[in-house]
């Protein structure tokens, strides 16, 4: 019989009718990409404009209409002490404040996670106060403190103020890293003949280092762009944000865009380095002997 000779013919599945998506489904499929696109645009448009206008060649002090492409802004910048001065001040303040606050904050973070002592709960709460206090209040109270103590206001007072608010952020960041640290590793190091200091240097520090690095980057970022508190305690010294704010009252000159672009690039490099170093730690090595 022919029917049995070709059984496949009858087994073939019925063609499934292609269902057309309804209009509602098609719209809902579009919502997510569009929404994402808008959000990304919202985040990056200001930065894109800033970068573009750093290459603008404006007629006057106003840098708001596109006149033509030039690299002159980047070249001229370095010969202008009124710009490089504040920039150098900001870098000094940020580096020093970051070093001090990262060191102190790391130690405080370790003490808070490691040891039981009187007032630990209280300190855990107090640490949040600088983060929660409005900057304007902190700035004003620091100013009255310095004035009543008769302290000369200059870069030193700026550093003191920056250390003060940075410490909170460092403690919170480092504490999270230390809380996940396995104490048995330190015991193992001591068991193998390392004293307390060597244990810290060879085991504890390398393992909490990513947390410390993240805290330091955060402190640096907070410090380099702080305006409100710095304004109160700066005295006659000028930092980068103070300078930008000063000149912007008369219109934004392209130098502001140039510096902004440079800072943005540096930040990108930092992020890239951090991601790369984390990747490197995770990547598995090949089997031995293959």
């Amino acid at each position, binding site marked *: 019989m022919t029917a049995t000779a070709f059984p496949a013919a009858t087994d073939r599945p019925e063609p499934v009718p292609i269902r057309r998506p309804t209009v509602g489904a098609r719209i809902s499929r579009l919502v997510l990409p569009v929404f994402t696109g808008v959000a990304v645009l919202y985040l990056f448009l200001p930065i894109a404009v800033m970068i573009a206008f750093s290459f603008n060649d404006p007629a006057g002090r106003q840098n708001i209409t596109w006149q033509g492409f030039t690299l002159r802004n980047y070249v001229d910048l370095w010969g202008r002490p009124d710009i490089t001065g504040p920039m150098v001040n900001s870098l000094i303040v940020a580096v020093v404040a970051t070093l001090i606050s990262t060191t102190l904050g790391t130690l405080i973070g370790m003490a808070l996670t490691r040891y039981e002592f009187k007032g630990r709960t209280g300190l855990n709460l107090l640490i949040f106060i600088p983060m929660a206090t409005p900057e304007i209040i902190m700035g004003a109270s620091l100013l009255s403190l310095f004035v009543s103590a008769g302290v000369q206001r200059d870069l030193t007072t700026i550093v003191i103020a920056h250390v003060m608010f940075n410490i909170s952020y460092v403690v919170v960041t480092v504490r999270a890293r230390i809380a996940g640290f*396995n104490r*048995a*590793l330190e*015991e*193992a*190091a*001591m*068991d*193998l*003949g*390392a*004293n307390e200091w*060597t244990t810290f240097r*060879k*085991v504890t520090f*390398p*393992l909490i280092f990513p947390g410390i690095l993240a805290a330091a980057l955060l402190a640096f970022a907070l410090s380099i762009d702080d305006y409100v508190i710095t304004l109160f305690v700066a005295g006659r010294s000028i930092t980068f944000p103070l300078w930008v704010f000063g000149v912007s009252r008369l219109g934004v000159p392209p130098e502001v865009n140039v510096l902004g672009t440079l800072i943005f690039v540096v930040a990108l490099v930092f992020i890239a380095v951090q991601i790369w170093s984390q990747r490197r*730690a995770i990547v*598995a*090595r090949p089997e*031995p*002997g293959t």
Partner: protein
Amino acid sequence: MTKRFGDVVAVDDLSLEVKPGEFFALLGPSGCGKTTTLRMIGGFEEVTSGSVYLGDTDVTDLPPFKRATNTVFQNYALFPHLTVFENIAFGLRRRKTPTNEIRHQVAFMLKLVELPGYEDRKPNQLSGGQQQRVALARALVNNPRVLLLDEPLGALDLKLRKQMQVELKRIQSEIGITFIFVTHDQEEAMTMSDRIAVMRAGRIEQLGQPEELYERPRTDFVAGFLGVSNLIDADVAGRDERFATLRLDGGTLLRAPAAYVNGAPRVRLGVRPEKLRVIALNDDTGDSVDADTNALDGTVLDASYIGVSTQYLVETPDGHKLTVYAQNLETSGAGEVLADGQRVRLTWKPQHTFVIGPAIGPMPAGDAELEEEPQVHA
């Protein structure tokens, strides 16, 4: 030595001597203070009262890095940021060993634990068993006088565990270092150790060789923790040179080695299930029992055929339930299994009877020969 955490007495006036080159196990249920004891020997936990000696040296107040002990931690505690090579070399580097020497010793250790070629791996690229071996190598390379191991096989699956038990034993006999091994697995302790201390609630219940603990447990706890025991209360009815006679509450007379009975009028006697022989009682079976044998009559409550043996639960007329493991020696097959309700007689040799008294005297023999200087003394 004693260790208190606030109100909790974790280790209660515990005394312990470990001989050089010995494989010594601390065995006990969870929370009985094994880890705490080990940590006091290693120097990680301050001793509340008492002292720890290593050989003749009092090390009670020395920090871990000044003690000639090394530890294999429960979860290995390998340094995640260092390679296998650097993990093993860690102790050598602390002692400023020359680089060449380090390379030699690490290579030797990796061979010993059968992991050559893994030098450049990070710990998270190793399996559990491999990590365990690295932890062992990292401790052993320092040539400690005593190696402390806290449930080193706890995280491994059963098969790997068995394999590592053999490995550990091999390594220990190859290098001859004293091992103090913590476990809550009685089988593991029995197969590996020269001597075992059974711990309970911060105290040592009994200390001895595995056979000794098994054949002659001295407390209910040890009898129940190491294997299965049948325990029955009895009065001491008399004794001669070799055997003491014990009377059960039902009147049956049983005998036990005289040395095990020490004057207490009421004791508890015990016998291991595999020591019992089970005979089916028929109407024509006489009452006559060989004078050298203990015998108890009863009824089979339950029988389960397990292949190599058959497990019976037998109830005596006065209500005691006894477990019996009968080897399936005859090639008779499953048909030979006694039915539930069958009247049976259980017989065993008097010397297989052990006695747990309310007041236990010194062991008859075996504990006294300590010709060598004890190595760890706590």
